[in-house]
């Protein structure tokens, strides 16, 4: 029984009313890698909810989520000191890239969460990268959560209320000439990833994207979360959530 855990909430913060950051006692084995997620019983919904690991130290695990519906609503009401029923860490992870490559992280909306973890890892590995991050509007922008470090940040909002008035994918494309990219790590809504995939394909850029499907088991045993790939249906929870963008049959 290594992956089913009851973990204590160490601290909780709420940003802009609908974004919640929890630090949990780190009881996870093996040590999580960026891209992996926790499958959490929220109390507000019948099945667990998948949330990316947004950061991890020896002592604590960080999650960051938007209040969307019944599950995340209930989860947002938890207090410091209370416990969460968790399965994790689960899923695969972003592959660690070659040092020599030009790396870009591209986050749309709450796709920020897994990329925060990846960014911290790259920083501690002293690897260079660029961070592209876009949100709907200023009220949805959590750029203050980006880790400190010596890397370039590009911020956009769909309505221009902060940063550039572009989608994050448009921004990424426009900068391509000046900001060379060999490999992309991306997370966010399906349509955003699809658009990004197209650009990467056209520009011959390697890209790994993290998908968000509805999940039941989160453990690879129920076949509930599949996405269509060129190799047939694959489980987002176990074969993913991170996929080489060329493998996915975008719909």
């Amino acid at each position, binding site marked *: *029984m*290594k*992956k*089913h855990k009851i973990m204590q909430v160490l601290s909780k913060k709420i940003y802009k009313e609908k974004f919640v950051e929890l630090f949990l006692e780190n009881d996870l084995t093996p040590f999580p890698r960026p891209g992996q997620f926790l499958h959490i*019983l929220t109390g507000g*919904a*019948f*099945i*667990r909810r998948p949330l990316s690991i947004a950061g991890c130290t020896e002592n604590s695990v960080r999650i960051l989520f938007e209040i969307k519906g019944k599950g995340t609503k209930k989860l947002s009401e938890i207090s410091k000191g209370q416990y969460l029923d968790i*399965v994790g860490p689960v899923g695969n992870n972003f592959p660690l890239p070659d040092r020599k490559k030009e790396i870009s992280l591209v986050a749309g909306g709450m796709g920020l969460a897994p990329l925060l973890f990846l960014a911290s890892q790259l920083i501690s590995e002293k690897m260079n990268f660029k961070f592209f991050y876009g949100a709907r509007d200023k009220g949805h922008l959590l750029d203050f959560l980006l880790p400190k470090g010596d890397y370039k940040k590009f911020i956009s909002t769909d309505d221009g209320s902060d940063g550039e008035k572009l989608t994050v994918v448009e921004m990424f494309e426009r900068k391509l000439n000046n900001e060379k990219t060999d490999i992309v790590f991306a997370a966010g809504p399906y349509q955003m990833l699809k658009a990004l995939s197209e650009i990467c394909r056209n520009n011959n850029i390697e890209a790994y994207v993290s998908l968000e*499907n*509805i*999940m*039941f*088991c989160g*453990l*690879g*045993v*129920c*076949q*509930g*979360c*599949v*996405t*269509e790939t060129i190799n*047939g*249906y694959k489980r987002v929870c176990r074969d993913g959530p991170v996929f080489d963008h060329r493998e996915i049959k975008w719909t």
Partner: protein
Amino acid sequence: MDLKQLKIKLGKLVLDTPVLPASGTFGYGDELQDVTDYKFLGAIITKTLTWEQTQGNPPPRIWEFENGLMNSIGLQNIGVRCFASEKLSCLKKLKKPIIVSVGGKSPEDILKCIEFLDRKNGISAFELNLSCPNIKTSKIISEDPRSTFNIIKKAKKITDKIIIAKLSPNVRDICETGIAAEEAGADILCAVNTYKGLYYDWNNKKMYTGGVSGSMIFPMALRAVYELYQKVSIPIIGVGGISSEKRALEMIFAGASAIGLGTFLIINPELPMKICKFLIDYLKTNHTNLQSIIGLYNEKRQKETDC
């Protein structure tokens, strides 16, 4: 916890505990070892396997209710041959009876699986999935007593292994198919599979059909086992909405010799442990044994059929 007293025989099938995983939420059998403690499980069961590898239905495949789930996996699996070459040997190491669930689009497909697997070592029983509501190209076999009888009869001819008939609850009277299965020589019944349901998705304005499982089906599943126990004399594995220790015991009281956990094995991986503990406590407090409480409160069971 002394599990010895939870040992139970379902005819020739000897289980360490009466708590079993249900097919379809346990992968190919060895994948949940880092989530639930296998010590508390009486057997290993596989996802339903078909003769050819099966793609399954297009996503989405999972929908949620307040107290349950609807799925339409469509039997995605690697196929029996791949299972036999890649998975079976790992399962044997678990030292538990191995139940292989087999299914398919036609009775012939199912029989082919059994014929092929019958030659392999280490399999204790075949569970014939006669009840999957999610294969759009075929009728549910166990909705019809004759078809149920026929396939079991044929299966018994090609294997000496234990045959479990997994029944559909989407029938007028589950005893009709249960009796047909028994008469054809089934060794054990497994009741029930999922209930035919529908989900409307407001986001994309689509209706999805599937099979409903989880706590919401428990009273109906319990009734199915209760009715079967009054009419058949082979052992019954009770499955459907078991979400707690109490409900596991209720299933046994109604007539189940063992119980299967599907949806709630995922929602609460500690449930097998909790059920075992609860059972042991119950047996101790009431100075009784597991065999004696099977069907204990099913007052209508005819004495004659009690054998």
